């Protein structure tokens, strides 16, 4: 039951004591005195089957008084989803992994019997007043995936019900806002954020406090705040997770900023491809409005701030702030020249401050725990942590939060558990705007400047681990393909420079590369970087430039020897080093593999043995997952 469901006459939160009563309510909800089964229902969990598990628990435990079933967000170890945490009344909990429908049935049974198994366990946690774990399970902090992490921004993810305001408050939520409103002048809040060294988490790394000071210093009849939730980098899903798991934190950050800068209206621009995030945000906004934490008199302070959601429509370029504002204004999403910058003239020509979801989510704790505390985490130039989505040729895939300054290799080997087979080659950061941190620089501490020095960038947090089975030319081809699709078309260097670059890369990976290609790539890269109107075009060449710097020999192997050393791209097997084979004697021709294949590489008559065309196969493995008899052999 959420706080909203229990809504009675006047639930307006007017002062600290109102917050405190919500806090009590939340604590009761978090630790209800009976066993609580928390099912991770973020997109990652749901994709793995958590919805079914949730239903099973609800059914099986409906009549069990000593147990309640709840939902939560993402615990970060997306690889192991569905994750279900069973919290006992004494505060000890066990997080189970891979809890599909069948596993859920058995687990529900165990919960009903009060006899928790110690298998299929990811980790144990200690909540509330528990000090020691009586079960034989590794503690959260001991699990390698979590050991090097410091979950500040993700502290509530996987713990609270994302739709429960009371639970959010019980974890300290909105006390930061209260403190800002009652104990600080607006200017002091800005100073605190400046002192914290919080820098833009969308990738720009601009000091957030400075950005706020520009807006605060502008006198205007109307000022706006924007939350950039357009998260377009392929493979990045940090913001999605935050919005799905802890939406109130993002909104509280914006509320604090509205007080600090004088903005009275905010917009969250969410990409339409995040329906669950939108749903959770809508619910959060409705809830906050109903209790007076959004509206004309926030927390009884007399200060006004309201929030509206604007959905994107499938355009990566609308993550660029001026294109985003154009889209909010119902114009075609094309960037505009800067200056003027948004704090001077932004949304509808009014002063505007735009920050990324993760940036906003950091703010409440800076106020609550202090700027110094935040600045102490991280490096001298960058306070706090960064959330990364770690994917690729890595054992532990998921959402990772580490202090800035953590070396790349810590993330890859300790948190990530190392590569899935081959030798570590490098890490791609920054998505289509970024580059590769090669193995020889794996000891580089992760920070805005250090990554730029290597020819990459922080970006929004996408981190793709690559081993020797990844072709670097194909990597840059992939990102350029993306940019060609996503270019808005306003300026020639981007809309056509990306296409020309892609053409050359396609030629190289097809065995049609020519000796002049490398120079041509460099020349196009220089033009795009210098002359493109916005960051999309300016940084589109980065993957090429970066891979050329560290892996030029791979390019030449493609061009001169018509070979892919990684055995990956068109010139290689195209299957990322893997071969898939259907065991002919066992195949009954059910056609499930062919249906699952995204590139139509499997042929076969109904009820006749099927076969995979190795030329067409891209090595995604969908066929193997779909095969009910499990007779598709994977090698490599």
């Amino acid at each position, binding site marked *: 039951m959420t706080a909203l469901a229990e809504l009675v006459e006047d639930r307006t939160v007017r002062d600290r004591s109102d917050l405190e009563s919500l806090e009590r309510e939340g604590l009761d909800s978090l630790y209800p005195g009976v066993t609580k089964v928390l099912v991770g229902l973020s997109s990652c969990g749901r994709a793995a089957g958590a919805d079914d598990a949730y239903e099973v628990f609800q059914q099986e435990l409906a009549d069990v008084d000593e147990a309640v079933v709840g939902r939560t967000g993402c615990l970060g170890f997306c690889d192991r989803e569905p994750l279900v945490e069973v919290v006992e009344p004494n505060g000890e909990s066990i997080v189970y992994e891979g809890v599909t429908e069948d596993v859920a049935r058995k687990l529900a049974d165990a919960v009903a019997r009060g006899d928790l198994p110690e298998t299929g366990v990811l980790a144990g946690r200690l909540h509330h007043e528990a000090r020691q774990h009586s079960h034989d399970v590794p503690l959260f902090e001991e699990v390698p995936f979590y050991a090097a992490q410091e979950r500040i921004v993700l502290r509530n993810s996987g713990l609270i019900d994302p739709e429960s305001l009371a639970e959010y408050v019980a974890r300290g939520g909105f006390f930061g806002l209260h403190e800002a409103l009652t104990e600080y002048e607006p200017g002091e809040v800005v100073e605190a954020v400046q002192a914290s060294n919080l820098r833009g988490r969308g990738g720009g790394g601009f000091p957030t406090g400075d950005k706020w000071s520009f807006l605060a210093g502008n006198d205007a009849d109307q000022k706006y705040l924007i939350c950039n939730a357009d998260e377009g980098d392929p493979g990045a899903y940090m913001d999605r997770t935050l919005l799905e798991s802890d939406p109130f934190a993002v909104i509280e950050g914006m509320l604090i900023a509205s007080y600090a800068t004088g903005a009275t209206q905010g917009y969250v621009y969410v990409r339409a491809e995040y329906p669950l995030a939108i749903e959770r945000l809508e619910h959060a906004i409705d809830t906050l409005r109903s209790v007076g934490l959004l509206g004309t008199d926030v927390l009884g302070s007399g200060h006004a701030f309201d929030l509206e959601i604007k959905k994107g429509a499938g355009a990566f370029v609308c993550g660029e702030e001026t294109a985003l504002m154009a889209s909010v204004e119902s114009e075609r999403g094309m960037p505009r020249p800067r200056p003027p910058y948004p704090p001077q003239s932004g949304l509808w020509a009014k002063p505007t401050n735009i920050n990324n979801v993760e940036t906003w989510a950091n703010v409440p704790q800076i106020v609550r725990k202090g700027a110094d505390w935040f600045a102490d985490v991280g490096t001298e130039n960058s306070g706090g942590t960064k959330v990364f989505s770690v994917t690729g040729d890595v054992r532990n895939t998921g959402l990772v939060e580490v202090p800035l300054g953590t070396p790349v290799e810590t993330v890859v080997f300790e948190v990530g558990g190392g590569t899935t087979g081959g030798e570590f080659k490098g890490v791609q950061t920054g998505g289509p705007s970024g580059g590769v941190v090669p193995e020889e620089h794996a000891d580089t501490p992760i920070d805005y400047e250090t990554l730029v020095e290597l020819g990459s960038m922080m970006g929004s947090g996408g981190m793709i681990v690559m081993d020797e089975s990844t072709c670097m030319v194909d990597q840059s081809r992939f990102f350029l393909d993306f940019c060609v699709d996503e270019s808005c078309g306003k300026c*020639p*260097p981007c809309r056509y420079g990306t296409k020309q670059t892609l053409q050359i890369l396609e030629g190289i990976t097809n065995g049609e590369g020519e000796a002049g290609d490398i120079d041509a790539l460099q020349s196009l890269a220089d033009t795009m970087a210098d002359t493109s*109107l916005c960051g999309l075009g300016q940084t589109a060449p980065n993957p090429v430039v970066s891979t050329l710097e560290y892996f030029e020999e791979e390019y030449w192997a493609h061009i001169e020897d018509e070979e892919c050393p990684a055995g990956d791209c068109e010139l290689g097997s195209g299957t990322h080093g893997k071969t898939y084979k259907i065991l002919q004697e066992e195949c009954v021709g059910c056609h499930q593999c062919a249906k699952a294949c995204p590139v139509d590489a499997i042929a076969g008559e109904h009820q006749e043995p099927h076969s995979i065309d190795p030329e067409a196969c891209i090595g995604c493995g969908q066929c193997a997952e779909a095969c009910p008899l499990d007779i598709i052999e994977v090698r490599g």
Partner: protein
Amino acid sequence: MITMSKTTDADGEFEIEFEIDGRTVEARPGETILEAADRVGIDIPTLCALEGLTNVGACRMCLVEVDGERLETACTTAAEEGMSVAMDTEALWDRRRTILELLFAEENHYCMYCEAEGDCELEDMFNRAGLDASRFPLEYPDRSVDTSSEWITMDLDRCINCGRCIRTCEEVVANDTLSFAGRGKETTIVADDDVPLADSSCIECGACVQACPTGALYGSASAYRGRTAECETVETTCTECSMGCALEVDTNSGRIVRIEGARDGEDGAQLCERGRFELLADGRERVDAASIHGEGAVDLEVALERASEALADADSVGAVASDRLPTETLVAFAEAMAAYDAEVAVPGTERVATEARIAERVAGELGTTASALRADGPEAVLGADAVVAFDTTIVDTHPIAAAYVRRAAKDGATLVGVDEDEDRFGSKSDVSIASGPAMRGVAARAVQLFEDGAEAFTDDRAGPLLQVVPALEDGTGVIVLGPGVDDEETIIDAYALAGMTDGVVLSLPDRANAAADGLIDTTVADTVDAAPDVAYLLAADDEGTDLDRLLPVARAADTVIVQATRESTLTRAADVVLPALDWFEREGTVTDASRAEGELTRVLEPRGPVDEDRAVLDALADPGEAPDEEVIEA
């Protein structure tokens, strides 16, 4: 008149001093580097910037190096004190060359076959950059060619997506027909929801054609008929309506090739379909010789003699002249006809005279002056907070004025469209009132509403008006009277409403020179009353409904003398036909709706027997004298 430049409100002193390529340049606060450079003749390369349009920094050609550290587009960057700008460097030209090469490879630029060759800004830029080829493999995209429109061809093979056509259609014409569709390299230009131009909301004004830097948009009737450099260009004034737009007419080998809006003019180079295109192609047969009914073509002197005899013998003469003629010709006409005691009329002048009379009277009653009640000209609409348009057919009759009204509405003005039939401004109006024949009722109610307040109203039709009056009261209001407003009561109420709300009335007489009041004292009639013995009709090149106005007089008279440019039912039925000049042969002055004088300049030498319309009239005025030598072409 109006300036349509979108440059930053540059009103002040040249307070800023900065450098471009080592040369000191002055600028006003807020001006861009490009504007300041342009003023002193420094030619920063551009493709997507155009005088009068918002600058968007899309083509990247105008990138300049600022203070040695960053590249900015000169068109969007304000000049600052002490700024050091580098424009003409090898490094920058390197970048420009790559961009041009990309532009070339991206589409299908076959200069050999393109009508814009020689008049193409992309080609000029290539030459300036020292390029004659692109090193990139050509894309050969599949682009569409739209030839559906009568006057405009859209060949997207040549489009560089600069967006000038779109911004022109949005910001200058305010018709919002063109827009971008698709993304990235698939970006293209479409009309409405991607329909052929002829099926779209396009009003075929051709402003986009003039804005297009390449051959993507061109005038079908002018294609391949001569590059601008090969033509002679004459500036004259359009006489199709009372806006008096400046025309730049290109001729080549004695033919009119193209008509464009004045490039440096104050109208922002905007013309309508009639002025830009229809004037090019009058398909009617030319009256190239004088003729007498039943006798065929005759020498001019013979015809003149016959005409003056008929006029002299007549008991009564009724004379009507087209209001599209220059003042000098109309004066000569009036004098010539006065010699025969004729009843003289010029259609359209009645309205003007009536209005003048009403304005004086209302002004007197309200304790102000008539000129205070009148708008200075159509541009008054552009700055208005509220516009009430009586007779929205100005969308057809005065397209440029209609564009101003639409622009005002876009800029936030409250727009009320009142019309006998439907409001032609459609959804662009905040309030639409279809008044039926009783348009006068609407104006009257508006006045009543202002005087008595909302409570006095019982009529349903008042509803929309409740929005009108506050809009007029709160800010600067302009009441536009289209050519169809002909009843005195509406005019009286319009002036009264203007006076009471500190607004002005913009009067749009139908035709070009109807506003020449005071210059033609005798011509306060729109038409001749009685059935005269002899009718003298100076039809000039009038056609359609304009010509139809003269037919009743012609039918009622026993003898009809016509001085006309083109053959028609009138000339075929007339007793004597005298040749007249066409618009491109006329000289003189016309007074437009702003009460400003426009010059008519001869574009092509007349080839017929008449060198000046006035000479014919002067010859008739002095029947005793031998025809002037000027009358007969040497």
